[in-house]
């Protein structure tokens, strides 16, 4: 065979055995014969420092205590973490440096696996079956690149971006073989250092020659950075049209929609992405949150189900996955005695019991029992509900409980008709977590609408309708609609204040109409429980004053 080595590389190829002997290798495979055969091959190329790991956990652990230059990892390792999960975990824990290469050995070509793996950017793939000659060729090329780009990657590891930028520029000027990599890295470095104009110039140059995904995506990211969301959306859409499997683009597109307040579009976009990568847990978690806030409970349930299902060996396994699924199922089954609701209730109890067994934490056990208590209550099983509540109570110290569990506790108290205790609990929490805006928000939300999800949804719809009627000038109908909404959420501040405002206007218009002061006062009374930090507090004070003035006039 006359295939001589690339002429340019002759010198570096000749030096490769030395490179092999200098670098530290990790070979990961569950199959001993395989590990040994790869190890022997690497040895014959000149490698000396070769460690082996026989499963994913072992690999992650070894990478925690040792720095490897090259990790060769099989994809399918039977029970336990697969190669993608190993890579994901190493990336997540920042155990892989820029100067390390992770190479996935695979025989997989199915879409969700290939796409799911690409997302975590392995430095290379090697397809099975592996022969020595082919592995050597592949490794030689990877090592040549590894060596050529080592100085830049070292700076990246040190986060010395200006130096990395200089080195990339030099490498490009040298007419490097790896100039494409350098341009991509350089543009990203400019982006990271907020030098958008330089980054944009590279992306534009690249795109003027050929439609390249990373450049198109880069342009979109810059527009996101400049808060030009509609423009960014166009870029991401273009990426997706050309590369429907490029999941990163869906994430950015979804974020852009969220920034514009288009939560429904954001949800739809993420749903397309999870259809391609059902195993990507962080994406499913985010989708779950989005669906939840969009009150699309069916979709939220299926997203959270996926987080539990695919979590088993993942770094993203978490008790929150179980609890969130339990919460969604609980909210959906509450106050509903259809067959489906019963199924949901059953599934909730099953999932929460699993969490109780699986996670050795009082907070988790308490939260799970609290949700279970609500599920039982929702199915009108008060005895079981009280029993779960008692279990949770025994695990919680009310004066030191964390905010999340505390809110869960209060929410459950409302369901058990212990409104006073719930409000007391929430007030205490509000004092303890005064500085934390997101906690205060959750507390407010619960104080405003301590009712079941279906009631909340009904109230919100009525509120919307009332506002529309008000805007159309149909004041009497608006008043009736707000009153109906208040049947669902009697203490909702915004709703009560809306009612007062419309009533005031209606009285003013119909000079003849009786001024019903007691009604206005009673309505305002429903809002007096809000703390001074509440969003509606100012409006409450203004309207109270107006009513007081009317009364005295």
């Amino acid at each position, binding site marked *: 065979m006359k295939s001589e080595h690339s002429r340019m590389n002759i010198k570096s190829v000749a030096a490769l055995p030395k490179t092999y002997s200098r670098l530290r290798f990790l070979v990961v495979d569950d199959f001993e014969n395989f590990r040994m055969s790869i190890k022997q091959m690497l040895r014959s190329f000149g490698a000396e420092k070769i460690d082996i790991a026989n499963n994913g956990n072992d690999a992650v652990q070894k990478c925690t205590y040792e720095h490897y230059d090259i990790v060769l990892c099989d994809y399918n390792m039977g029970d336990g973490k697969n190669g993608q999960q190993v890579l994901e975990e190493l990336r997540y824990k920042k155990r892989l440096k820029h100067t390390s290469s992770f190479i996935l050995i695979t025989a997989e070509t*199915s879409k969700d696996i290939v796409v799911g793996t690409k997302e975590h950017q392995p430095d290379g793939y090697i397809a099975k079956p592996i*022969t020595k000659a082919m592995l050597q060729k592949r490794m030689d090329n990877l090592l040549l690149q590894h060596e050529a780009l080592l100085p830049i990657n070292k700076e990246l590891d040190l986060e010395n971006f200006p130096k990395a930028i200089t080195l990339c520029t030099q490498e490009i000027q040298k007419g490097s*073989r790896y100039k494409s990599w350098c341009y991509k890295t350089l543009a990203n470095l400019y982006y990271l250092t907020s030098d958008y104009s330089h980054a944009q110039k590279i992306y534009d140059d690249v795109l003027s020659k050929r439609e390249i995904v990373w450049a198109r995506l880069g342009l979109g990211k810059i527009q996101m950075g400049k808060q030009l969301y509609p423009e960014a959306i166009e870029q991401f859409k273009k990426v997706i049209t050309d590369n429907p499997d490029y999941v990163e683009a869906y994430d950015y597109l979804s974020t852009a929609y969220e920034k514009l307040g288009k939560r429904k579009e954001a949800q739809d976009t993420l749903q397309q992405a999870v259809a391609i990568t059902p195993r990507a847990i962080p994406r499913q978690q985010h989708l779950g949150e989005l669906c939840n806030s969009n009150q699309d409970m069916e979709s939220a349930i299926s997203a959270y189900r996926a987080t539990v299902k695919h979590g088993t060996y993942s770094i993203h396994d978490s008790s929150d996955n179980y609890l969130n699924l339990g919460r969604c199922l609980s909210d959906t089954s509450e106050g509903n005695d259809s067959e489906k609701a019963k199924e949901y209730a059953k599934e909730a109890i099953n999932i929460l019991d699993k969490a109780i067994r699986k996670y050795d934490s009082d907070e988790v056990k308490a939260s799970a029992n609290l949700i279970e208590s609500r599920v039982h209550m929702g199915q009108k099983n008060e005895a079981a509900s009280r029993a779960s509540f008692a279990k949770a109570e025994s695990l919680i110290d009310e004066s030191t409980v964390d905010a999340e569990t505390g809110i869960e506790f209060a929410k459950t108290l409302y369901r058990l008709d212990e409104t006073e205790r719930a409000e007391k609990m929430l007030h205490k929490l509000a004092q303890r977590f005064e500085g934390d805006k997101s906690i205060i928000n959750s507390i407010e939300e619960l104080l405003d609408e301590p009712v079941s999800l279906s009631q909340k949804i009904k109230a919100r719809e009525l509120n919307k309708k009332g506002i529309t009627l008000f805007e159309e000038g149909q004041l009497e109908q608006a008043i009736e609609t707000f009153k109906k909404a208040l049947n669902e959420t009697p203490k909702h501040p915004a709703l009560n204040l809306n009612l007062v405002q419309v009533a005031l206007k209606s009285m003013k218009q119909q000079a003849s109409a009786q001024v019903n002061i007691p009604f206005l006062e009673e309505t305002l009374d429903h809002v007096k429980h809000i703390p001074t930090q509440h969003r509606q507090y100012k409006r409450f004070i203004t309207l109270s004053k107006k009513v007081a003035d009317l009364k005295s006039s």
Partner: protein
Amino acid sequence: MAENHTKPDFSMVMASAVHDMKNSLSMLLHSLEMISEELPEEMKNSGKVATLQYEAERVNNDLIQLLGIYRLENNNLSVHIDEHFIRDFIEEQAARYEVLLNSRSITLNIECEDDLVGYFDRDMIAGIINNTLTNAARYTKDTITLKAFQEDNNTVFEIADNGSGYPESMCNAPGKIFKGIDFETGSTSLGLYFAYQVAHMHKQGDNVGTITLENGGDLNGGIFRIRLP
């Protein structure tokens, strides 16, 4: 949680079977390499080892195509177009055939600029090149040329041999030939069909990848060409 008591998904069954077979092939090929190192010189060159390797590669190619076409039908095959160094890429593919070609005294020429880059799905194009090399090794007299170059913003791979060339019927409509598949030319047709489909999945603007079959050229044999935008 609601359990799914559906039939096993055939795609999953197939994927896991193929995966398993590929592992076996890997072990088989590796054992073969080790055995052949212990063999006396005359046996090393007898061609028997090479035949074993060759058949293992053929099985591998068939597996890739089988699974690929199945996924194609189910819309579950996705292309991932990345930038690749073409010379590195074709040398890696050629390396699989080193022993075989040596034992059959077939010369493989590689013609490609060092730093030429192309944009394609590595695994899929590798599958096509391997399959074509396997065929060429079977039909050529003693020479194969694996060539890659840039032409009008397209990346072109050419595999030429000095055998008796492709049948005229194939040259007219490669890829479509699959319709009239018969068992005699079955595996070749399957390969062409797959190559045609994969080429078609490579797009840039309005341009789509193509394959062509020709006879003649410098080696006066069969020429397989895949052109990717």
